[in-house]
């Protein structure tokens, strides 16, 4: 996926106002199947697998034994003991190893990343455009649900999901079919209000929506609790999970730092790795930063020490050798517009 096709801001606005499609085939897909698959995943990931049912999706973290974050993933339940995991591109090999290490012999774990592709269609007009161009029936499909549809006689999975904070869908299919979906969106999408968008807009959209990016806001030095993802960590689930004990200790001791959103009060953009100060003292580090086209100002996320995490706190960020004023704000920067249910 290129950084942009025309302009990051134009593609960002296109997504918020109408519809954009993104080639996200870089995502990895694992198929986990067989007797004991539920129990295996329940122990391996942080979220509670009991929240799933057929056709439902959950977000989860994958932690190591120390409770540090190896990846953030999605779990799609096809049937009991039959799941698809969607993982980040950078983590495919490491994640596969991390799952494999705990997989019992009765469970097959297959990396299908090479054969599967994904096109994300995001924005308020997504449902209408997909129904019209591909004949899908999506009105009844709730947020974080998926269903099988058919294209050219081949099955594809369509989920109501995405990373932009807008209503939207992700279509998982074979590589060949994804090519056809993409070409059809390119040739017929324009007159319906859909245009291709790149990595740059995907980043500004997700940042405004307050969605973390693995590798920036979350990595093997941070825990899900510090990243504010405690809602996807079922500390009390039966049988525990890999990393739980360390996370429990961290929770009981109290978090020393937290991932927060901030808004720049002066012009420059704070970018990843820039140091954060509070009252002249080093208080943290920026993990993501950009101009927010919908927010209309420069925004970012970063880790700050305990005491600086409350919205309204004044901070400074060192940019090109100068301290620039910023303010901690509640996430998201732009309200999410996901379909209810």
């Amino acid at each position, binding site marked *: 996926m290129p950084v942009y096709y025309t302009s990051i801001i134009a593609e960002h606005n296109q997504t918020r106002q109408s519809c954009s499609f993104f080639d996200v085939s870089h995502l990895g897909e694992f198929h986990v199947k067989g007797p004991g698959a539920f129990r295996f995943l329940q122990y391996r990931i942080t979220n509670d697998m009991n929240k799933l049912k057929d056709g439902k999706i959950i977000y989860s973290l994958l932690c190591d034994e120390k409770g540090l974050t190896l990846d953030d993933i999605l779990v799609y339940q096809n049937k009991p003991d039959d799941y698809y995991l969607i993982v980040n591109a950078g983590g495919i090999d490491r994640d596969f190893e991390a799952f494999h290490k705990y997989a019992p012999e009765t469970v097959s774990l297959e990396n299908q990343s090479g054969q599967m592709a994904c096109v994300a269609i995001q924005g308020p007009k997504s449902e209408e455009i997909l129904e019209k161009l591909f004949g899908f029936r999506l009105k009844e499909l709730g947020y974080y649900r998926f269903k099988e549809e058919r294209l050219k006689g081949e099955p594809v999975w369509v989920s109501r999901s995405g990373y932009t904070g807008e209503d939207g869908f992700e279509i998982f299919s074979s590589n060949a079919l994804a090519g056809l979906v993409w070409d059809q969106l390119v040739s017929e999408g324009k007159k319906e209000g859909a245009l291709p968008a790149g990595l740059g807009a995907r980043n500004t959209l997700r940042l405004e929506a307050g969605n973390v990016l693995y590798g920036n806001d979350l990595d093997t030095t941070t825990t899900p609790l510090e990243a504010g993802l405690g809602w996807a960590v079922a500390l009390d689930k039966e049988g525990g999970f890999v990393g739980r004990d360390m996370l429990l200790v961290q929770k009981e001791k109290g978090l020393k730092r937290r991932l927060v959103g901030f808004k720049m009060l002066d*012009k*420059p*953009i704070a970018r990843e790795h820039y140091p954060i100060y509070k009252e002249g003292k080093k208080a943290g580090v920026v993990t993501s930063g950009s101009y927010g086209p919908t927010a209309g100002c420069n925004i970012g996320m970063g880790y700050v020490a305990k005491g600086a995490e409350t919205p309204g706190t004044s901070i400074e960020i060192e940019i090109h050798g100068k301290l620039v004023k910023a303010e901690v704000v509640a996430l998201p920067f732009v309200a999410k517009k996901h379909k209810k249910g």
Partner: protein
Amino acid sequence: MPDTSKLRYAETHEWVNLQGNIATVGITDHAQKEISDVVFVELPKLDRAVKQKESAMIIESVKAAFDIYAPLSGKIIKVNDKLGQRPELVNRSPYEEGWLFQIECSNPKDFESLLTESQYNSAKESAH
């Protein structure tokens, strides 16, 4: 639009228009496309002495922050204040309204050592 064949260019994608010993500097159309949506420019301070190839200012786009280098040595005598309110002029009009700063050159002859338009065009092609 100025006659771009009369301008000289730095390998770092700045253009220079020399009148007497005053050099007007901006970034090329190729550079503005690469940088994409400019959202902030940190212009150099007036009277600052700059050396050829030294970072003179920063352009921020949605994508990243980019250093802009002084193509000639001298003193900054004027900056394009309009860019404070309208940084997008760098994208819309890189050779006219989106100019960046003027240098009073200490050694105007260095202009001749900069790239000509055809040299710049072939240099940027080969960089791809």
